[in-house]
């Protein structure tokens, strides 16, 4: 399977920004750098779209534009939280007005399939359309579905992506669960804090995927796997080793590992373990200081890996004696949802 195009709306403005400078924001929450939507979406449509819908639709359209594809055979979205902004608006009015005098707009846009549906509507695309909402597997489910459709053969191009937003309300609630660090800190130092909690993030990332090579692809996705609720770090090591064995990948074949450390001392333990065992001696980099932690953050990691392979460039601070042509991604979300991706240059 080939990644024909990739686009993201994320806290970093661009891949170039990631290469040149560390984003050293003083923050407890990373928000997306949103583009001028009027350049991407029909202004008449923008007015009716909530923030996450705009982010998702814009990333998708950018991606299709890059691929030169106006009509994908399938559109698949993954989102753990769905359209939180509109859900909150409707919920708040419902509570405050005691279920009276409500208007439908926010309700209509609150359904989890809004982003994928709006993309179909804009493209007038009658093809396969699906939305997955399985927490930290939402994006992985979308990828599984995409790979399965491509394997079946009738579908040639799939637009697949991961979208999640933070809102003031969701941030306030998730903070009460102790998910985030409390005091603002320099995001580049997130892995040195030795404390509990991470930094909230968000993003909208889409890919055009094809079963055949186009001659101008970002990368080939050679291997992909997920595992759920491992009982120990030993089991994680076993899954990673088995994954590499199945794809016939030797450790010396991996130029770079991109992994999901998020600055939470407990969360990050397993990464330290695997870098001492299954993935010992391989150059590795985290990515959540760039995009923050959220259930579909692995979509951002895939975008980052695809860009590193396409350009052959590594973010500053990494040993760059060799042009990276293979990247392994290992990410877990709250130690429940684990995913592995292996990409190589085309």
């Amino acid at each position, binding site marked *: 399977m080939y990644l024909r195009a990739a686009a993201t709306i994320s806290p970093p403005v661009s891949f170039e920004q990631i290469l040149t400078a560390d984003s050293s924001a003083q923050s407890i929450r990373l928000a997306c750098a949103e583009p001028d939507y009027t350049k991407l979406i029909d202004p008449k449509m923008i007015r009716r779209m909530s923030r996450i819908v705009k982010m998702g639709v814009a990333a998708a359209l950018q991606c299709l534009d890059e691929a030169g594809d106006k009509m994908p055979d399938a559109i698949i979205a993954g989102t753990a939280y769905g359209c939180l902004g509109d859900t909150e608006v409707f919920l708040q009015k419902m509570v405050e007005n005691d279920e009276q005098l409500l208007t439908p707009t926010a309700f209509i846009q609150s359904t989890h399939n809004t982003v994928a549906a709006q993309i179909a509507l804009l493209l007038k695309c009658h093809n396969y359309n*699906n939305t997955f909402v399985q927490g930290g597997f939402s994006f992985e489910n979308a990828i599984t579905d995409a790979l399965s459709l491509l394997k079946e053969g009738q579908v040639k191009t799939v637009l697949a992506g991961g979208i999640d937003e933070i809102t003031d309300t969701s941030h306030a609630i998730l903070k009460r669960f102790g998910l985030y660090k409390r005091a603002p800190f320099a995001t580049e130092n997130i892995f040195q804090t030795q404390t509990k909690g991470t930094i909230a993030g968000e993003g909208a990332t889409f890919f055009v995927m094809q079963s055949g090579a186009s001659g101008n692809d970002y990368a080939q996705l050679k291997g992909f796997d997920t595992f759920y609720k491992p009982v120990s770090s030993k089991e994680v090591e076993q899954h990673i080793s088995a994954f590499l064995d199945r794809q016939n990948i030797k450790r010396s074949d991996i130029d770079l590992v991109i992994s999901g450390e998020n600055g939470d001392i407990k969360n990050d333990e397993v990464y330290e373990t695997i870098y001492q065992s299954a993935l010992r001696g391989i150059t590795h980099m985290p990515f959540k200081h760039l995009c923050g932690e959220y259930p579909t953050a692995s979509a951002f990691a895939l975008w980052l890996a695809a860009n590193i392979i396409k350009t052959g460039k590594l973010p500053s601070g990494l040993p760059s004696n060799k042009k990276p042509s293979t990247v392994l991604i290992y990410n877990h979300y709250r130690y429940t949802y684990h995913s592995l991706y292996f990409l190589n240059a085309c």
Partner: protein
Amino acid sequence: MSSRIYIAGAGIISAIGNNITENLSALETGRAGMGEMKYLHSAHREKIPVAEVKMDNTALAALSGLPAHYTRTALLSAIAAKEALTNAAIPGFAKLRSGFISANTVGGMDKTENFFSDFLSNPAKGKLRNVVHHECGAATEIVAGILGVKHHIATISTACSSSANAIFYGARLISQGMLDVVIAGGTDALTKFTLNGFNTLMILDNRYCQPFDENRRGLNLGEGAGYIVMVSEKIAQTLPSIPICTLNGYCNANDAYHQTASSPDGTGSYLAMKGALDKSGVKADEIDYINLHGTGTQNNDIAEGTAIKLLFERRYPPMSSTKSFTGHTLGASGGVEAVYSVLSIQYGLIYPNLRFETQMKELPFVPETVFKKGADIRNVLSNSFGFGGNCSSLLFSKV
């Protein structure tokens, strides 16, 4: 399809019964599940009838084996999924590669909406345990744990077509050899959020709904859960008796017309039904029963009816909307109606479309009004169409 997907079991809970036996009995006796709200606390209690599962959360918790403070969405899901798996009685299930693929539209909203009123008064207030299972995926995670499923879990949310998509995503993973067994379907609990949402759209009937009737006024919301257990040919051979029903075709298409309304000519509905027929190789005149999406809204029924008129041209199979019994169970409806479709093939049943009076003037056919038993039902088409233009059809066949 490359390999057969057998239906080894089914499980259901709805406004007309807490299991398959109770549902069948209500379908046979024509007993609808709508009534005045008893368990949902809404300002619209006396004005809008709903089709509630006839148990409070304490009773549902006892039946499901889950704590009573869990979301109603999870409790309903656990009860139906457990019935389905028990009913399938797959030898050595724990050793097989299994998947739980569920669907819902509002996740734990039944608890979140209570949390929210406290939270709005003070952001430090509201019990966190009432919002911890808010995400749609949470109920799936809980129930996968009860079922002992670890290989693959997924939740789909494509509005009212969610469960149908869950079922055929699962079928695809089996036919490609990724999984041996999949429990798939969906769940949704009634919430004030959805009730008020549909109310603002002015598509709720303040009487009992009349799907496919000229004088239809809208839909009744319902709640419930429905799951089927699908197995590969290889696993089917290990069962005490090989199941007689298979998932033979499916299709997902998008209407791409409007965020909430269906196109007048039912483009999405037509493409979904046509795609399912094409996939299976079954011809339109071989369909013995259509379980309609049939919500009872002006818009759905004319769009769906127009698509059927075009696709079936003069030879219209018996059809009915079982939403006239269960109400519209939203994310669960594709699962609930897949269970009815499987039972239709298993026992030769055609269900009545309750309260039908007047033929729609645009359509040359009428829905079935009488319960039929012992018919030779070989192919059943089940429709699920939703917001966002998401249209899906499933085609079940007798082996």
